[in-house]
């Protein structure tokens, strides 16, 4: 038994909340009540060892990934390594860029192995792993701001769509970003893949040497940061429309490249109230009308049953 961990149902009596050190998961599942109970039990027993597993290899996971890096021993650490490997030769990235998505994926896998679920999600601070069985789907909504939620766009994840992971990255989040995006949301085949890709795209939303942007070597803020002395964004002043568009375009260009390689399904890139969308190849989502939409800073899983079917 791990004495640190919090394992509890949220006050709604339906969702499970798991917390251990910096890991904080909100979990939901639909299915027969005894199946959901079994899934939650499995989630909790998988969860309690995760932080210790990761910390065992923390120095390796915090080191820049390269083709010569040793492959980690742990199952979750291995998924983190795999998720960042497509990027490791072209930029600085450590396996930590995929930690949240990999943890979400592992807990979801424990749940679906233990129980028959219609659908389930594990939300690890905005990095979400999804399970949908035939005939069921999730509607994922994007809201403007976490403190003043107003749904601006949503899309359905059905079993036929190659999306089981949703991740959001940006400088305002808990992790450091090299870019200036308020939020980059990525849909990908798995949660760790989405997590790593969101980091890469968010880093690309940038205006190098812009005077309104305050950057600080990561270790000045957090002495043991895996980003060493890379300049991380701490503040972004007001930008003009042209600058916003330029930064968004830089991010969207990278996102399209990742999409062309088949590493991500779609992305939304947000900066100071503006949004650029990188739509899926065959568009099943409803965000297609305009390139510029109201602001987005977070994603949220809508727990209500899907209201509409996806269409190709």
């Amino acid at each position, binding site marked *: *038994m791990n*004495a*640190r961990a*919090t394992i509890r149902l949220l006050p709604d009596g339906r969702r499970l909340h798991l917390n*251990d*050190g*910096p890991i904080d998961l909100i979990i939901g599942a639909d299915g027969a009540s005894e199946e959901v109970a079994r899934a939650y039990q499995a989630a909790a027993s998988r969860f309690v060892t995760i*932080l*210790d597993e990761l*910390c065992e290899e*923390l120095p390796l996971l915090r080191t820049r990934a390269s083709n010569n890096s040793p492959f980690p021993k742990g199952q979750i650490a291995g998924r983190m390594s795999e998720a960042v490997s497509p990027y490791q030769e072209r930029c600085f990235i450590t396996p930590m860029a995929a930690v949240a998505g990999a943890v979400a994926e592992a807990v979801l896998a424990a749940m679906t192995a233990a129980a028959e679920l219609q659908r389930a999600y594990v939300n690890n601070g905005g990095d979400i792993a999804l399970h949908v069985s035939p005939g069921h789907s999730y509607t994922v909504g994007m809201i403007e701001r976490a403190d003043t939620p107003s749904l601006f766009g949503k899309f359905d994840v059905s079993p036929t769509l190659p999306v089981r992971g949703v991740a959001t990255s940006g400088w305002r989040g*808990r992790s450091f970003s090299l870019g200036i995006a308020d939020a980059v949301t990525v849909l990908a085949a798995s949660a760790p893949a989405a997590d790593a890709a969101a980091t890469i795209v968010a880093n690309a939303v940038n205006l190098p040497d812009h005077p309104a942007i305050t950057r600080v070597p990561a270790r*000045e*803020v*957090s*002495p*043991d940061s895996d980003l060493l002395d890379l300049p991380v964004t701490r503040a972004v002043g007001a930008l003009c429309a042209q600058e916003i568009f330029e930064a968004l375009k830089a991010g969207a260009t990278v996102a399209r490249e990742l999409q062309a390689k088949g590493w991500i399904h779609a992305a939304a890139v947000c900066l100071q109230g503006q949004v650029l969308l990188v739509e899926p190849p065959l568009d099943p989502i409803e965000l297609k009308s305009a390139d510029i939409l109201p602001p987005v800073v977070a994603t949220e899983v809508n727990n209500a049953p899907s209201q509409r079917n996806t269409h190709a």
Partner: protein
Amino acid sequence: MPEIFPKDTIRCDACPVLCYIKLGQTGACDRYGNIAGQLVRLDPHIVLDRAKSQGTPLVPFLEHEGEWDGALMKSKEMFVTAIGAGTTYPDYKPAPFIVSSEVDGVDMVTVVTEGIFSYCGVKLKIDTDRHLGPERNLVRSKGEPVGHVTTAEYGSQMLSLGGVHHLTGGTKSEGRVTCETLLDLCNGKEVALTIDDGASITVAAGKPPIVNGQQEERMRVGCGSATIGMFAKQWFGKVDEVVVVDDHITGVLSEHQAGKMLGMRETGISIQGRRSTPGRYFQVAQPGTGWGGTNISDPLAILKPFKAKIAWPHLRLLMVSTTGEHFAYYELDESLRPIEKDFPEPLRESVDRIRENCEPALTTVVFMAGAGGSLRAGATENPVKLTDSVKRSLTRVTAGGAPTYVWPGGGITFMVDVSRMPENAFGYVPTPALVAPIEFTLKKSDYAALGGHMEFVRTLDEVMREKQRQRQLASLPENPWPLKPVPKSEGEP
């Protein structure tokens, strides 16, 4: 690595990530930070909202508040708790928040600070008849001594955990485990404890205790003798003899005053143990976790052979524990030996009634701590005056908005039921010591009179506006509103 860090950097040991945290920054979890070189838990600052708990609408009564002169407006009823407020220890500085607000026309001040308590502990009341261990024996968590067994109370066993001798007087590991155990109990988490020469228990505030793997369901309604008295009438006529098995006082219906009153016939029953008064027996067995808090699993073990001259074949005997949890029915055979039979339906109701009358068995956790001089100095330049004011009931002491009991005598030593406090109200520092919220509420005029830090008093509105990591919670309806003006003021009748 560590030597290259500035000297104000600390290492957090709250989880295995072991973050290095610079002065004024937080760790990876965003919940522990380095404040003045101390590792401090930084949960959101909790503000209690009275309207939320009363279910009154949260929209303002007047739509255009600004156009009203405000004379008759009731100010919003909010109470700034110390949870997440931070602390100024060990500096002799004013408390982090000294908040003024007007309540029912009276100017009140609340001094809000998180206290760091090395002198603290919890008292556990565990509702069980089972024997948890001999009085004075050590209670252990993860093998480390964290407290001891103290008195048995009516239907409950008390444990005393923590205290300065376990926190800082023993080995480093003893202190760390004690701190962790207290923190978990205070924050409502489940804790596993073992008692030397006694039981293994799992306890959490407000939940049924688990003794040797078995969950307690009910608290006994009374001792065996009292149970006989309460239910004698319901048994009369349905059965010839009833024994209520209890480690404290086992009751026997036919011999008991209640049976005599009903004119019950002698049965020739003979009980192990020491007879106290008719129908009441002490020490029928050893204490344990079996029937009625004894060590027996077969109730016949407490019976000696029936007296042949008095007993008769087919005599009907009910044996039941004080909580109705255990029960069995016997009839004597031709040689007057009790033989267990199917439990008769007519008796089931009485057994159920015993069980119904037993309240749910719970563990309750009461936190007890003493506010030291430097904490009191955060409220006033002359700490003893605060003590004095508390003693004269001019100052109310709350913990996270929950009512406290302040011990008579010197100092400010208080107790609070942790289940009346908001969730996760406690933190710790690696000293080791617990961090607990404490608020002192008094009239503004009294605060000035006792040498309060008047220049640091801020209005409720100011505090509500500037505080960033703030979370508003409904106040618990069963708690008195902590800001209610204290009854009388200095010099008033």
